[in-house]
């Protein structure tokens, strides 16, 4: 077995997420590729909590589809996660026998799992460790026992974790683990399943989540200033910066609200520093005005929006991809603001760096559009050779240019060298008011048109950055998938599976989501007869945005739905299959389908 998806749920106190953390750390250390997502109810403490851990000997692109293993510490909580923890006929179900549910009548309508184990998890925990708190350790023992994963590393991890709390606790947990393991050995699986050993050398993998990766990438990219206001699921970036910024001579500020959060960051950028702020939808809404100011004042700024379910407060703890319209269009006036989206923890490094580089090179705010899944899931990352990346800096005026300096000079490429306070001779007026080349206010329609044109022109080269697009599959494929953000990983797997089934399919994943790179899409779509733009949003926002600028082939449809209803690779493969069948029909029927 080379791939295993484990889903677990319980009440807040059950330590389900902590078990997941132990498991993935151990697996990562051993060299497995792994991914872990968490999901909670709305309670801060107590309430339901769950996690999914996927382990594989090959790279994993998404948290997987149906569970191979389901662990329910109680059924009520487990069921609250619905499609997030899908059980199928081939799932091994493990649950607390105290729930009193009979293995033959699990509360899983329409599904009869192949193997079901009612385990007295609580009893075992109390027996081994004298406390219910060890339930999660028992579960780890069960998993290690049945699926042969990472025994030593888990134990090592537990020892480390509880070391501070004393030897007694370490031993109690070892006992609980062993008891779980023993139960597994005593009740073998009907169809034994054991994970293959990983390939890489132990201890070489990185393990982190999207938010921490983003913050670290920002440090790498030279960001020396963070200011923001806390909001789920982005607060971790601020938490990273308020702790680490100082080590690099930078600073971080928790502000009184989102306007102040982006305002201070913009001030820092005006002062010559690379700066960022981070938020989620409600905060992005409040930052709208100052985002527009950053555009007209031509100041570099990176704004991270970790998308969650909307509108309004919406579903704060769930992933959705519904802030794209907002990211691209939320400014009054004519504004062009690049939007970049990472698709996984790993590429969050490069995409964040690109965001800073683009911001600096073009003197523009850049929206970095992450989502709750990418931001908060943990993922193993293969070591990144950072020496192959360039860190860009804004173009400052030369001594000669300072002789006769005009901050907003009309240059050929639309980028004007930018000074900052402290630079003698570079003194200028920054303004949200329309201005002339010196930054002085104007009400002239002619100047306004010229400045609008400049602000758009300077960003045109972005649309030719084919390195910001990932295209896979055969060049002339007639079937296509387009996906962005966390859904891209699902589509990557779907495209691979479909190809292995013999379907003629290709995939496009943009890191640069806006502006729309017309030619890259035109080229991509040239061979395409049918396909899907796959998104986790009710409206299918990327599909609509593509239509604005590109003649999307009539057979390419939007495949989209509301957040907290994750896609699975297999359903996308199924859609591709039907599309392929439809393509066999006479051409007319397709044309009239639209």
């Amino acid at each position, binding site marked *: 077995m080379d791939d295993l998806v484990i889903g677990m749920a319980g009440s807040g106190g059950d330590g389900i997420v902590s078990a997941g953390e132990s498991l993935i750390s151990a697996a990562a250390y051993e060299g497995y590729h792994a991914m872990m997502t968490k999901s909670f109810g709305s309670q801060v403490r107590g309430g339901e909590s769950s996690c999914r851990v996927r382990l594989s000997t090959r790279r994993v692109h998404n948290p997987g589809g149906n569970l191979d293993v389901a662990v329910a510490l109680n059924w009520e909580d487990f069921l609250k996660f619905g499609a997030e923890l899908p059980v199928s006929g081939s799932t091994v179900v493990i649950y607390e026998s105290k729930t009193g549910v009979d293995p033959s009548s699990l509360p899983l309508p329409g599904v009869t799992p192949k193997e079901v184990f009612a385990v007295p998890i609580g009893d075992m925990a109390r027996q081994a460790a004298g406390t219910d708190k060890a339930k999660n350790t028992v579960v780890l023992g069960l998993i290690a026992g049945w699926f042969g994963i990472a025994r030593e590393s888990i134990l090592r991890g537990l020892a480390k974790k509880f070391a501070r709390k004393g030897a007694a606790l370490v031993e109690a947990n070892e006992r609980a683990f062993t008891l779980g393991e023993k139960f597994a050995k005593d009740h073998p699986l009907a169809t034994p399943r054991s994970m293959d050993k990983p390939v890489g050398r132990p*201890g070489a*993998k990185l393990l982190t989540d999207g938010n921490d990766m983003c913050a670290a990438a920002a440090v790498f990219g030279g960001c020396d200033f963070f200011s923001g206001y806390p909001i789920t699921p982005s607060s971790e970036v601020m938490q990273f910066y308020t702790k680490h910024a*100082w080590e690099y001579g930078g600073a971080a500020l928790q502000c009184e*609200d989102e306007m102040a959060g982006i305002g201070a960051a913009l001030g820092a950028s*005006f002062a010559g520093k690379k700066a960022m702020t981070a938020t989620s939808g409600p905060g992005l809404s409040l930052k709208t005005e100052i985002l527009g100011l950053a555009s007209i004042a031509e100041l570099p700024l990176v704004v991270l929006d970790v998308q969650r379910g909307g509108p309004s407060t919406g579903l704060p703890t769930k992933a959705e991809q519904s802030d794209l319209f907002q990211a691209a269009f939320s400014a009054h006036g004519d504004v062009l603001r690049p939007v970049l989206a990472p698709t996984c923890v790993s590429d969050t490094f490069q995409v964040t760096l690109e965001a800073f580089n683009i911001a600096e090179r073009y003197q523009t705010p850049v929206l970095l559009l992450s989502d709750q899944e990418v931001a908060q899931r943990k993922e193993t990352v293969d070591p990144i050779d950072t020496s192959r990346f360039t860190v860009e800096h804004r173009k400052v005026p030369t001594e000669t240019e300072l002789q006769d300096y005009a901050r907003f000079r009309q240059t050929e490429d639309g980028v004007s060298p930018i000074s900052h306070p402290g630079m003698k001779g570079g*003194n200028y*007026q920054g303004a949200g008011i329309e201005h002339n080349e010196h930054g002085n*206010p104007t009400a002239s329609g002619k100047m306004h048109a010229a400045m609008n044109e400049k602000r758009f022109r300077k960003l045109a080269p972005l649309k030719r950055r084919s390195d910001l697009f990932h295209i896979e599959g055969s060049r002339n494929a007639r079937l296509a998938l387009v996906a962005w953000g966390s859904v891209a990983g699902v589509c990557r797997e779907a495209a691979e599976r479909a190809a292995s089934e013999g379907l003629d399919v290709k995939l496009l994943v943009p890191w640069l989501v806006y502006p729309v790179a017309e030619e890259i899409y035109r080229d991509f779509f040239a061979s395409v007869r049918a396909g899907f733009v796959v998104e986790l949003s009710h409206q299918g926002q990327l599909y609509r945005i593509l239509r604005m600028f590109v003649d999307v082939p009539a057979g390419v449809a939007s495949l989209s739905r509301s957040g907290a209803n994750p896609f699975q690779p297999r359903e996308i493969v199924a859609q591709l299959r039907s599309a392929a069948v439809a393509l066999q029909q006479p051409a007319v029927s397709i044309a009239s389908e639209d």
Partner: protein
Amino acid sequence: MSPGVVEQYQTKDFKSDLKPIWCPGCGDFGVLQAMYRALANIGRPPHEIAFVSGIGCSSRIPGYTTAYGFNSVHGRALPIAQGIKLANPDLLVLVAGGDGDGFSIGGGHVPHAIRRNMDLTYVVMDNQIYGLTKGQLSPTSPRGLKTVTSELGSFEEPVNPLLYVLAYGANFVAQGTPADMTGLAEVIEEAIRFPGFALVNVRSPCVTYGEEDQQIKAHRAHMKPLKSLGHNPEDRLAAMDLAQHYARELHTGVFYRSPSPPPTFDALARERQKERAGRGLPRERILDMFLQK
């Protein structure tokens, strides 16, 4: 300026080529003059000064100076200025704007700027009206005032900016009027020299939409220099007591100056930078922090 140092700057060094487009007679002209004088006395070169404002007639002031200016958006001058100062504490950072900009839309930022206590100087041109948008009620407009948005008279008590900022814990609070240019230039200079957040509320007449008792002439007749009242500017409670009279009296001079100003945020940040320097992984190796060992 320490003795022996040659005075290097004159007011003209801070005057930009832009001609102010304020209405003839507007009090903001006087504030601008006082600012030129204060800056000339301070003696920092213009390029080391960042001058941030919001939106309003008064917020146009940075453009009339040779400093780096940032005429930002309505109500957000303080956050932007704090970002500038924290990013580069070596700069002299000035903030200016109107009563609407500072106490209405921007009012939520004031307490936090004060408790954070960066070394900024904030000059409010308080004309008790919205000038730029043509005469609506401002938060400092007196109760009952008739304006285009209160043709039948307003229902609200005005805010008392002096009392607020004292209650917020501001360590330097002063008031001035262009009717007394020397005094105004003095308090602005003193505010700039004060190490920490300093506020100067200037009763700057709006000749176009302002009330009669808020014009230069009335100011000249009624203003009461705090010095002449024997007020001790190191007594916060006394300052608050005097501040109560904001709406009825025109006190000028320093209401409160902390005798022992606490450390500023920017200074603390510097210290922390020094203390933490080199403690983290080098930027190029930052990802090593995620290695599973």
